């Protein structure tokens, strides 16, 4: 069982649900199939969500939220 707090899972899930639809793909769609297809759209999408996710996780950790 994950130790990550339910509020992080739920709130993060809402944003993942919105972002996947608006951004036309997720880690599987853009990250695996899109990059595998050499799609420029997907490469830009991956760079965008990877950068933002790294920043978000670092900020959340710096705020002392763990896990």
């Amino acid at each position: 069982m994950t130790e990550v707090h339910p509020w992080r899972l739920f709130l993060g899930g809402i944003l993942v649900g919105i972002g996947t639809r608006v951004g036309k793909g997720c880690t599987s769609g853009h990250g695996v199939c899109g990059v595998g297809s050499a799609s420029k759209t997907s490469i830009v999408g991956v760079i965008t969500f990877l950068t933002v996710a790294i920043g978000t996780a670092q900020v959340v950790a710096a705020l002392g939220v763990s896990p």
Partner: protein
Amino acid sequence: MAQDRHPLFMPLILVGGLIFGFGLGFSQMARPEVVLDFLQFEDFGLLFVMFGAAIVSGIAFALVPRIRDSAPLTGDRYERRLKSFDRNVLVGGAIFGVGWGLSGICPGAAYASLGTGNVAILWAIAGMFVGAYLQGRWRSRAASGEPAVAGAD
């Protein structure tokens, strides 16, 4: 839904899902902690899994259509499903990134995580359903306000 799908189409989707889910579980990517460790630069496994999978699928996308004209079981043509680029890719990618960085879950990994017995991940799956529903509501409201808008996907 297309009615003229080959009868093997859905079973093949199931087999693909089985392999995909097994891979996510086996590689530990179904555990939000491992994803969050990557995003905090403490474990770089995710890079190898995601780009490793992209390389494998890339080889398949590049080579298989040159070897064969159609899929051996269903007879479907091979094609890449490329998405057009617009501002939404950046906006949606950023929203996705905040959610991914906050929770350590993404759609595929969340379902695989449920399969590993991680029942708490239902919070994340519930969140994804709510988020996807809200986005659909918002989009149809925006579309009814501007009748000329073409569908993004």
